[in-house]
């Protein structure tokens, strides 16, 4: 169940093509949502709302994780990493700026996935919950994009960035409690999940979709934002460290 998008990494270089974009980022997550929703019905694990909301928020990970990785990976692939790292502008700002479009992309995917998924499964959300849901998706997507940047930075160190990002996507599927309710997961997995993006955004979104109001969802949203901030800082630090290191060892291009 985790491999979805594993080889998508090969398609990523063609993301600018509409068919690839639609295929990978819109249709893929939709089928993933349907898969888990029907599985949930069959096994009586949780109801449709649980799966629709959770998987819609999770859909943002593809854009965020692969996008963030790509932001760093592409620079290297096209040999522009040196130029970016040596440009007089703040390197950190350059890279963080690159995460934003992917976060935006993530929100778009999450919205489409949720709308279409809910329509197909005949699920209705309270109208008042929509602004809150959008907020949850935005926070989740941003956290994902920063998480992706962190992975991209790690990719600078571990030759193949795509291994890192694909493994990460697999783990997110399992540990965020989106598809297996966290009550059913062992405690240590839940603990790890709390430090991953999406976990809190998904639980906030579920509260909102159930009509509990923004106040009830606020603590979870806050935690998600905190996780995102954590990864933003981590990404910046890692980039700084690896940059200094690569300058010292002159391994910028051969990394």
């Amino acid at each position: 169940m985790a491999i979805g998008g594993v080889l998508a990494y090969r398609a990523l270089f063609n993301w600018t093509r509409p068919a690839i974009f639609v295929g990978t980022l819109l249709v893929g997550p939709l089928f993933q949502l349907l898969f888990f929703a029907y599985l949930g019905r069959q096994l009586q694990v949780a109801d449709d709302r649980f799966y629709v909301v959770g998987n819609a928020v999770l859909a943002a990970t593809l854009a965020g994780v692969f996008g963030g990785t790509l932001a760093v990976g592409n620079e290297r692939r096209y040999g522009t990493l040196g130029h970016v790292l040596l440009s007089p502008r703040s390197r950190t700002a350059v890279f963080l700026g690159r995460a934003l479009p992917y976060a935006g992309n993530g929100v778009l995917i999450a919205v489409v996935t949720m709308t279409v998924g809910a329509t197909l499964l005949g699920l209705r959300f309270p109208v008042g919950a929509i602004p809150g849901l959008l907020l949850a998706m935005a926070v989740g997507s941003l956290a994902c994009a920063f998480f992706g940047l962190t992975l991209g930075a790690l990719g600078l160190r571990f030759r193949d960035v795509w291994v890192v990002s694909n493994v990460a996507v697999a783990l997110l599927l399992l540990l965020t409690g989106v598809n297996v309710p966290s009550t059913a997961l062992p405690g240590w997995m839940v603990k790890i999940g709390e430090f991953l993006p999406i976990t809190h955004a998904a639980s906030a979104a579920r509260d909102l979709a159930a009509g509990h109001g923004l106040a009830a969802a606020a603590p979870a949203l806050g935690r998600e934002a905190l996780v995102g901030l954590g990864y933003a800082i981590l990404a910046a630090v890692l980039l700084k460290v690896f940059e200094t290191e690569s300058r010292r060892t002159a391994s910028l291009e051969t990394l």
Partner: protein
Amino acid sequence: MRTLRMLALGTLAHVKQMSRSSFEVTIALVVPIVQATLAVYLFRAGHERHALLQAAVGAGLMGVWSSVLFGSGGAIQNQRWQGTLEMIMLVPRRPVLVILPITVATGLTGTYALLATLAWGRLLYGIRLDFVHPVGFVVAAVVCIVALGMFGLLLASTFVLMRNANALTNTLEYPIWLVSGMLVPITVLPAWTGPIAAVLPTTWGARALREATTGGPVWPSVTVCLGISLLCLAVGSISLTYVERRARAAATLALA
């Protein structure tokens, strides 16, 4: 005999080439653990605690399908990138004999996912590997893998021509898992998916494996699975011949 030898040695060469990629190796180490874990906890959360072995088998088969799906599409794209697609299409053989070893190889590397998922299930979650029909299970697994390889050939024949087959690949993973009831037969699916499921070799392969695991008439499912796959092979073979000619006309064999 000579052709069989060629197919076997060709498959072996491609298994070697595929299984030595560090990307594939890392993914192969991690993914089965995640798959097994996900399946086990989902089943435990539901009311299917007794069916954990079935969950592990299903999750493993899902891995085989992923390998065939991405492998058959990705391998051909890879051949193109490595510049080997031209070299293998240039040999004096029918295209099907050249491509089939590649797609069967993707099924074979997928076997690893099946075995690893079962192993992790045993190791981490103490799932007892007591199959109702052990021999039936082995036969069904072998048939399933070869069958998926043949099905992969049908996919491959479309992928040779399309430079952006990835779009299709990325969307085909979950639907096949879902519709063919790999993890668990899904009775709550809309009725119109029934006929689709009935013509997919994956449905019958999954069924055969399940019957061998938990009891049931294994052989009819195995036979149907093999029959549909041979049909895929025949159609794929014809379409490959056509596709090869189109590719020579459209100049899509060389680097995309």
